Each structure stands twice: as structure tokens, then as C-alpha cells.
């Protein structure tokens, strides 16, 4: 029914709005005609991680937000339809992606998150030999560890990584640069390297008692990998108002917290969470404390009792372009809590400094072709996202575009014989 409702726009805005430019009307019409395998193939043409994207994309801001039916009717449920086509392909284990004849070229990909998997898969389908080095035990990066199960269960991320492996990509797990992986060795073994290392842990807030505050990303990870043993507080306070903070609050609420309060030092005008996420979480019964800045943790015998905060006012815009919060003197108060989670962004990629890469605002700086300051070393995903919000689908597109650039570069090497 829903597939038939699509108007089949020409040069469609949903396709433009999608960072990977999936030909949305094409895959939807294939659903309508009952060509589900063809539909999945049409998605894979533009995006090898269509199954994850179908689950995690902020479609209201992208394809569905651009749907021509949105203004007066309801937009087509593009995300749901994409998931339908992807589920069809994965449930039947269909082999839909053709792999070109081997080129004899080898590329290393560091990190198996969305950017890494996308880049590796795109290179593999072009006939290259690709090895992904993943520092952790499971492939998938944030899809596996950082997307709450409500949106994407663990299996969905792992199945997708497995599909990339079946294109011929090797994934070496527990392999980390500087630990058991040598940079110079990689440089010698591979014609090109793609860095998709993501970002680091949640930065320090430099407040007393911070060691008692849980890291938001670890909180999500724990809920996903081991939610039976997960300890959720009765009164949970989440610091931050981005999408990760919202995810943490959702987990806490759904896993049994009585009271979940989100604390943010600016207002709902400045928060970085998507509007639809904000609406969602309000419906979950989560309370918001805006213009509230944490200044310390109240604890007794190592057990959290509350979060001490001050009120803020908004001053002139800061470096982020948003109005800077300024503490109001003498406004200190305490919010009762037995668990505090912080989700206030991620540390910049520390690898950049170690490898001596040029950076931009702490992120790895790349050219239009996704090449870093070291020739034949490319990068993509959250670790280069100096501008705009990081997202899975942007990482997938980075991986794809970088793969195209890498392919062009190393094939030139072959033909021109410039260097080995």
C-alpha cells in the first residue's frame, strides 16, 4: 500500500536529501511491483549499509523530510520501506552485489564502523583485496556498540558486517594501531589506507566527583551487549541534550528508572538532538532541566546521591555559534539522583596526533578526495566530521566516496606505473 502511494517523482528530492543518494523512487517502485530483490539491489547500488541506515537515519531531516507529499499529506515512509527491502534480502541471504575481477591491489581499513565497512565493501566490489583492522571484539563500530537496541539490535549490525565480509573483505578483530598493529608495517603492505577510527570517549567535564559519572556511550554499549546485568538507577540524571544523551535517557526509562532527568546548560533552542528525537523522548516521560549546568556530584560512601548544578543565562554566541551559557551566581541547587550519565560529545581522534596528521578543529583534515595530509592515507566518518552533525549515513557516504577516490588513485598507479 505504502509503496503504491509514492508518486515516483522525477529527479526526486528524497534522493537528493539522502547523503548517499539512494534512488528512492526506484527502490520503492520495485517494492510495488513485487521485485524485492531488485529493490534491495537498487539500495545497495548507492549504500551498502542500507539496513543500518533504514533503522537509524534521521529520515525526518533527510529523505522523508524532503518528500513532496510532506507539505499537505504524510510523507512516504521511506525508512520503513527501505527496511522492508533490506530485511527481505537478509532474511533470504540473497547475494545481490556483484564483485569485479581481482585487481591485485590491497587496501587497509582501520575501524569497522559504518565508514569503514562502506569503504571496504565499495573497494571489494571493485575487485580490490581489503583488510579491516578492528580494535574491538565485534565488527560494526557504533552500529554495534553505540546505537540503542530499540533502533538497531546487535544482530542487524553484525549481519551487515558479515555481508561485507562475504564480498571478500577480511576483518581482523582485536587489532589496534599502537597496540598490536604497526603503522609502518601497514604502509608497506597496503597500497592505500583508509582511517575510519571514529571519535574517543566522552570528554571530562572537570567537576568534582566526575569519576562517579558514567560515560554515555559505555552506558549504551552495556545496555546493548548485556542488558540483563545492566544496573539502572531509580533517579537517573543525564547530562547533555544531543542524540546520544536522548538515547541514554531512553534506555534508563525503558530499563526501569522511575525518574529520568536531562540536564542541559542551554535551552531547547540550542540543543543538538533532532526535533523528532526531542518529541519522542518527551512522550517517554523524561523531564528536562534547561539552563542548568552541573558543578559537582553529591555522593556518600562512593554512592551517588545527587547532582549539584547552577542556573545559567545565555550570553553572546560562542565558537559553536550558539549562545554561551553563563552561570548565575548563588543559584546552586541539587537534583536527587542515584545514577548520573554524561553524554556531552566525544573526544577528538587521538590517532591524528600520533600519526602526525593535519587536523581541523581536532578532526582529521582531508581533501575533497578524502585524502589526509599523508599521501595514500584517506579518512572518513566521524573522525573527519569538523562540520555538520555526525551521522551513520554521512559516514557511509564518506566511505563510498573515499573508496571511489582510492580506486581511481590505485588504478592510475597500475596504468601509469608512477609508483608502487
Amino acid at each position, binding site marked *: 500500500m505504502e509503496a*503504491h502511494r509514492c508518486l515516483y*517523482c522525477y529527479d526526486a528530492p*528524497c534522493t537528493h*536529501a539522502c547523503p548517499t543518494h539512494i534512488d528512492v523512487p526506484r527502490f520503492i517502485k520495485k517494492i510495488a511491483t513485487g521485485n524485492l530483490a531488485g529493490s534491495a539491489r537498487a539500495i545497495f547500488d548507492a549504500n551498502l549499509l542500507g539496513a543500518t541506515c533504514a533503522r537509524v537515519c534521521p529520515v525526518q*531531516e533527510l529523505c522523508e*523530510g*524532503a518528500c513532496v507529499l510532506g507539505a499537505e499529506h504524510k510523507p512516504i515512509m521511506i525508512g520503513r520501506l527501505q527496511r522492508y527491502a533490506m530485511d527481505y534480502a537478509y532474511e533470504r541471504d540473497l547475494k545481490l552485489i556483484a564483485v569485479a575481477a581481482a585487481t591485485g591491489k590491497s587496501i587497509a581499513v582501520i575501524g569497522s564502523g559504518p565508514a569503514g565497512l562502506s569503504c571496504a565493501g565499495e573497494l571489494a566490489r571493485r575487485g580490490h583485496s581489503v583488510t579491516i583492522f578492528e580494535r574491538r571484539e565485534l565488527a560494526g563500530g557504533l552500529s554495534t556498540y553505540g546505537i540503542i537496541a530499540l533502533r538497531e539490535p546487535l544482530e542487524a549490525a553484525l549481519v551487515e558486517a558479515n555481508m561485507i565480509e562475504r564480498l571478500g573483505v577480511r576483518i581482523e578483530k582485536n587489532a589496534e594501531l599502537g597496540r598490536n598493529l604497526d603503522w609502518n608495517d601497514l604502509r608497506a603492505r597496503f597500497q592505500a589506507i583508509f582511517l575510519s577510527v571514529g571519535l574517543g570517549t566522552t570528554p571530562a567535564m572537570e567537576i568534582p566527583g566526575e569519576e562517579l559519572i558514567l560515560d554515555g556511550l559505555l552506558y549504551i554499549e552495556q545496555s546493548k551487549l548485556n542488558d540483563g546485568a545492566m544496573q539502572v538507577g531509580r533517579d537517573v540524571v543525564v547530562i547533555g541534550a544531543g542524540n546520544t544523551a536522548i538515547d541514554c535517557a531512553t534506555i534508563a526509562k525503558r530499563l526501569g528508572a522511575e525518574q529520568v532527568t536531562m540536564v542541559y546548560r542551554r535551552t531547547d533552542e540550542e540543543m543538538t538532538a533532532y526535533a523528532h528525537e526531542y518529541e519522542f523522548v518527551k512522550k517517554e516521560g523524561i523531564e528536562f532541566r534547561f539552563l542548568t549546568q552541573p558543578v559537582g556530584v553529591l555522593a556518600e560512601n562512593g554512592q551517588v546521591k545527587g547532582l549539584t548544578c547552577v542556573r545559567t543565562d545565555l550570553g553572546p554566541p560562542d565558537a559553536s555559534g550558539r549562545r554561551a551559557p553563563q552561570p548565575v551566581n548563588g543559584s546552586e541547587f541539587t537534583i536527587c539522583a542515584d545514577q548520573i550519565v554524561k553524554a556531552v560529545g566525544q573526544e577528538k581522534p587521538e590517532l591524528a596526533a600520533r600519526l602526525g596528521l593535519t587536523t581541523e578543529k581536532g578532526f582529521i583534515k582531508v581533501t575533497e578526495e578524502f585524502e589526509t595530509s599523508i599521501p595514500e592515507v584517506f579518512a572518513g566518518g566521524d573522525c573527519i566530521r569538523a562540520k555538520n552533525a555526525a551521522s551513520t549515513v554521512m559516514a557511509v557516504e564518506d566511505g563510498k566516496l573515499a573508496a571511489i577516490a582510492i580506486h581511481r588513485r590505485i588504478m592510475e598507479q597500475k596504468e601509469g606505473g608512477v609508483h608502487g
Partner: protein
Amino acid sequence: MADLSVNFAGIRSPNPFWLASAPPANSGAQVHRAFEAGWGGAVWKTIGAPVLNVSNRYGAWHYGGQRMLAINNVELISDRPLETNLREIAEVKRAWPDRAVIVSAMVESKPEAWHDIIGRIEDTGADGIELNYGCPHGMSERGMGSAVGQVPEYCEQITRWVMEVARIPVIVKLTPNITNIVSPARAAVAAGATALSLINTFNSIVGVDLDSLEITPNIGGKGGHGGYAGPAVKPIALNMVASLGADDVVRGAGLPISAMGGITTWRDAAEFLLLGATSLQVCTAVMHYGFRIIEDLCDGLATWMDSKGFTRISDFAGKTLPRISDFSNFDLSFRAVARIDSGKCIKCNLCYVACNDTAHQCIDLIDTSGRAVPPHSYDERSNGKQEAVGTRPRPRVREEDCVGCRLCYNICPVEGCIDMVELPSGRDPITWNELVKSRRDVTEDWKAMEEYRKKVGIHVH
């Protein structure tokens, strides 16, 4: 409220809507319920020769998520005993004296058989008889139904046998499985029929099962052509009804027409009435939604009549017939162009691709700065709803190049967004027939044609 009652060849009915001779009018209980719902009449499912039916007798054609745009069937005439049908017909007519009860009949092509059935039908008190010359499956293989309707001589012969004995109005039902519907209609007129009805169903194969490779529907591994009806046939039925209305012989004879073929809404009904029908028969829509649809058929029709100032059906029946003409009488100087209302346009750009790929290449895509741009001209790195919506080009017609073909108008999914605007062509009105008379050379020779175009200012690009 407008008066919907009709007098069809002396058969009175409180509204023009009759159940067509088909499964909905298969039994007394059904017709009772239909009359309770408000139907003006019913043409009883054809009675006559003995038959046996099969399962999987109905197929359907679905399109674009819409169920049953057409139905197809291999159901034969009534498989209930003749006596049962005759008894129930009499009971229904007694219970509903104000409704039209017409009995459809089909027997072997022998005068005795027809004389016999006509007498038995008249004994029920029915208001009229419909001769089923249309059934395209099963019965036709036995020399009945469309096997009669397709041969005007047979049609005329059997109608004569019927008219020898009939004392109540006789309606000849025509098959559309024929090149020219006018021929059997004239045969019926010649034989003295009281009225005509059309159309019966079309020969059709509704589909092939792509898993089993069997015909759909599959009847024990086999399948074949069946009678096709429903919304999908309406335009063809309209044309056939109108062509009888436009025929001098048929119209001159003054036979009323009971029209059917895909009537689903009061709008369809009004169209058939405007093209010369006096009563209307409905089957597929009832089989899809039940007898209750009669409510809006009547209510919608009456409301529309009120808005038009028509107080009774006869005020507008056949009113559009004089508009029917041939291409050779159309004004070749008539000019219209498409105009897109940019306020209503949702920029689906379906008009652009249709015009550009398949029509006359006169719609441009205009970017936000007002320049014509090719499709897919956005930067590959741009994305997001703001970017996609904010920079999306809109379609605009180059009116000087628009031939007014009306394709974009038909495609546009937004009501009232594309309008066909009449513009003065600057040329004197002229028809092809007039051109043949005044400038025969232009109609026969390309060179003369080109000179003529140049002279009068017709530019074909």
C-alpha cells in the same frame, strides 16, 4: 431534491439504478435486500438452459494497489432450478410493485424454446424481459449468448421469435465483443425490440500466475477467457452507448437504452445518462462493496442535478450527445496551452519527464535563480531536506512551444495545479473537412501542407 424516477419503455422505477443481470441478482433473498437498500430495479440473473458452474470462477485485475479495477468471470447463467427462479421472481414482484423487475433469459436458438420461456416469465408478473445475447463464455460455446450477439442476423431472428409472443417490454442486451456495436443494435431495432441494453462483458484473460505459470484464476489446472467488467471498461462502454445515441437509425427508432459498464459512482451514472441512457445497471461495484452503494448513487446524482437545476432525469438525458463529433469536424485552429500554478506545484516533476521524454519537450526545470537547468544538477555532496527542498527546480511550460497535448495535465497528481488555458491561435476556425473542400492539395501533399502552415502560421517543431 430532484426526482430520480424513470419510465423506461413503460417500465417504471423510482430511480435509474438497477442491479445488472449477474450474481447480485441471483435470488429472491438478494433482490429483496437490494430493494430494501433502495435499488430502483433488478435484472434477474439470466434464466434458461440448464448449466453447471465451477469454482474459482471470478478473477480480478488489480492495479497500483487498487483492488479489482476489473472483474472477470466464467460463471454461467443461473444454476438454480428454473422453477425456483420463476417462483421467487413472482414473490419479489408482488412484494415490490414500485420497483422494476426484469428477467434476463437465454435459451437454445429455437423458436419453441424462446416462446416457452417468454410465456413463463410473463406469468411471474415481471415488468420486462432482457435477452442475453452477450455472455462471452460457456454459453457461447453452446451457440447462445455472444454467439448470437456477434451475428446481427441471429440477433434479429431470435428477437423476432420473441417479439411474436411478448406482451411486456423486451430489452436486447448487446455484446461488446464485436467491431461495430451499431450493427446488432440495428438488427434489434429491425426485429421490433422495445429497448436496448449494453454492454455485456468482454472476452478476457485476467492474468497468468508467475509462480505456477497457470492461467489466473486456475480452474483445476486450466483457465480460459472470461467476461471482463468493472471500472476499467467504463470508457469503452461510454463510447458504445454514445455511438448508439449518435446513430440515426437507432436514435430515430426511439428505443430507450439501459447502460452499464463499470458504473461505480453517481458521476459515472451521470455521464452515461448525459450520453443517452435512460436506466443504468450496476454489477461490479456492488460485488465489491455491497448493495449499500445505492445510497450515494442516488444521493450524489440528486445533489448534482439540484446544483445544475435539473428536476428530473429527462431534463438532461442525452444532453451531451450533440457534442459528439468526428475528428474531421474539430476546429484545427483551437489552441490551448498548459499552465502550471507554481503555488500549488509540489515539484514532483512528473510533468517534466513526461513532456521531455514522451511528448513535445516544452517544460523546463527552473532553478531558484530563474535559470533553466538540466535535471540531476545538484552537487553530489549536498544533502538534507533543507538543501533538497530549498534548491529543487520547478517545472515551467514554454507556452510558445506547447502544443497543448494535455499529457502533463493528465499526469499531475495535484488537483487544479495544471490548467489547460485556451489562447487565441490568431487563425480562422477551420475543420479538416472544410480544408478538404477548400484546399484539397494541402490534405494530400506534404509540400502544399508546409506552405499552408507557413501561410497561416502553424509552427510544428
